[in-house]
């Protein structure tokens, strides 16, 4: 009977591992992505249920404290479900960061609890090393994710001071040294373990603090793979194959995803982590040379758009913040009715995360085939009569191509100045998320339309309809 149950547990773990792999694979194709997510969720549910009811510890005992476990799952499900359902589409990236932090914290707590239980014989330092690793990686992921959450949510600014890289390095060495010391102890030393936990959490904070808000997606992706590795440490502790497969899979896939994201911005991971994005502002001095910007009135803009043959929209985070994705879609439909060809040019890092803008526009029912990726868009700007830049800044900043001293130098941009006319909708002349000036605003082809993206778009729609 017990043996049979063990076989069922094992079979379910195999099945769950397969759903994770198939799920991830399906998640990387637009048509199958949603089903892939559900398949992985089903596998996860199976693994959880089987563990709850059939799992036996090495000494043959079924799990106890089921009341506590059920209560924990109920509380977690209720909070997680409501939070995930309520969060606005624009706040998705920080939500992912938050949930990632929860997973990291979970792994760290498991390590904290397992540490005093492992057998402190001279030969078992290896297992202690895995437990300590789970604590370090999970803890860093937790506190780092919380800081990333705060940054994306706008609660925490970028803090840097000279010598910060050095301090972080020293901190990392200290954490690793203490971790190694604890690994080789012959008896549990809880005060030191707690000290190590505190230092790890502090390290996570220091690690993310100096990284610019614009780079948070990369950081979250990296911390995501950290949590995967932390989960895998748990798998090693319990000889649990499904934790191991799931954790390592996410660890390696997350690392690749992080690298792909860096590549989309044409930067290296090292540059993101210690490059101090936007900390120097050499272009601020150059801004004075540009002269004045030209404004355009709503009615002039409406006429320009109505009599264009081809209009391209460059949406940015400003559009998302103003919740104007539905409004821009209305404008697009109106212009199409007038025979204007409208498409959207999506920069890979538009919004706060790669693909974030696609999700937002999809929410507003913008047809999939109207979204052009960067290369395609750059080929088409030359034939566009007008480009409307809505709440985007850094992704259309020519400094990325021309100014080698600019912090975004080398990042591929949307080359909107190839179009005949450029209308930039912006709240004010303030710099973008990366904190740098934008020469596009001073380009002779560019005219500025100041105001909140949503209300300005609504006025524009009224004017276009009247034309």
């Amino acid at each position, binding site marked *: 009977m017990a043996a049979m149950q063990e076989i069922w547990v094992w079979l379910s773990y195999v099945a769950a591992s397969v759903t994770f792999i198939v799920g991830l694979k399906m998640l990387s194709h637009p048509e199958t992505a949603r089903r892939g997510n559900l398949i992985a969720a089903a596998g996860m549910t199976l693994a959880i249920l089987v563990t709850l009811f059939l799992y036996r510890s090495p000494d043959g005992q079924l799990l106890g404290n089921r009341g506590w476990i059920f209560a924990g799952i109920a509380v977690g499900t209720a909070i997680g479900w409501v939070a995930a359902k309520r969060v606005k589409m624009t706040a998705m990236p920080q939500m992912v960061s938050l*949930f*990632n932090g929860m997973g990291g914290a979970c792994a760290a707590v498991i390590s904290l609890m397992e540490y005093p239980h492992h057998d402190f014989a001279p030969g078992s330092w290896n297992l202690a090393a895995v437990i300590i690793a789970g604590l370090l990686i999970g803890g860093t992921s937790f506190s780092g994710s919380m800081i990333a959450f705060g940054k994306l949510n706008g609660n925490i600014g970028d803090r840097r001071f000279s010598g910060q890289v050095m301090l972080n390095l020293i901190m990392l060495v200290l954490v690793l040294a203490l971790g190694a010391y604890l690994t080789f102890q012959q008896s549990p030393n809880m005060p030191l373990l707690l000290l190590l936990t505190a230092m790890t959490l502090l390290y996570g904070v220091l690690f993310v603090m100096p990284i610019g808000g614009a780079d948070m997606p990369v950081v979250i*992706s990296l911390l995501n793979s950290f*949590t995967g590795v932390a989960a895998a440490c748990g798998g090693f502790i319990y*000889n649990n194959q499904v934790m191991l497969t799931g954790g390592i899979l996410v660890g390696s896939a997350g690392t690749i995803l992080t690298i792909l994201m860096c590549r989309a911005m044409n930067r290296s991971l090292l540059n993101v982590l210690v490059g101090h994005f936007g900390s120097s502002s050499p272009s601020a001095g150059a801004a004075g040379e540009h002269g004045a910007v030209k404004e355009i009135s709503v009615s002039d803009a409406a006429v320009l758009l109505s009599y264009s043959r081809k209009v391209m929209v460059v949406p940015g985070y400003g559009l998302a913040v103003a919740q104007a994705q539905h409004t821009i879609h209305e404008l697009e439909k109106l212009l199409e009715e007038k025979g204007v060809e409208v498409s959207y040019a999506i920069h890979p890092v538009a919004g706060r995360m790669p693909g974030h803008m696609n999700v937002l526009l*999809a929410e507003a029912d913008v047809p999939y085939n109207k979204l052009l990726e960067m290369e395609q868009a750059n080929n088409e700007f030359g034939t566009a009569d007008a480009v409307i830049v809505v709440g985007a800044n850094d992704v259309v900043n020519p400094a990325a191509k021309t100014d080698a001293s600019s912090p975004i130098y080398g990042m591929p941009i949307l080359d909107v100045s190839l179009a005949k006319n450029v209308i930039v909708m912006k709240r004010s002349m303030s710099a973008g998320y990366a904190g740098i000036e934008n020469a596009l605003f001073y380009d002779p082809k560019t005219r500025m339309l100041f105001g909140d993206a949503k209300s300005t778009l609504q006025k524009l729609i009224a004017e276009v309809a009247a034309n």
Partner: protein
Amino acid sequence: MEQLLYFLFEHREMVFIIILSIFLGVEVISHVPTILHTPLMSGANAIHGVVIIGAIIVMGQAEPDNYAALVLGFLAVVLGTLNVVGGFVVTDRMLEMFKKKKGKQA
């Protein structure tokens, strides 16, 4: 060194799984279009919620009169569940957006 080798050999299946999973993870992800980066990251985020299994085990093995362990274990279960449920639901909400519009095209 000998201890390490012995440890690895003792866990040889695990080591095997780790190595194969690393390659699998790389392979599965490498051709993903940019628009799916965010949902994919979110989906992967939900999958590492598998750490909940460890939380359940550690909680289930805690002595019923060790309140510190019970509280910590309870916390771990809540955190792990948040990761799993929140992760999958958020991912589904993102992907729902893509689906809706596809239905309209058809």
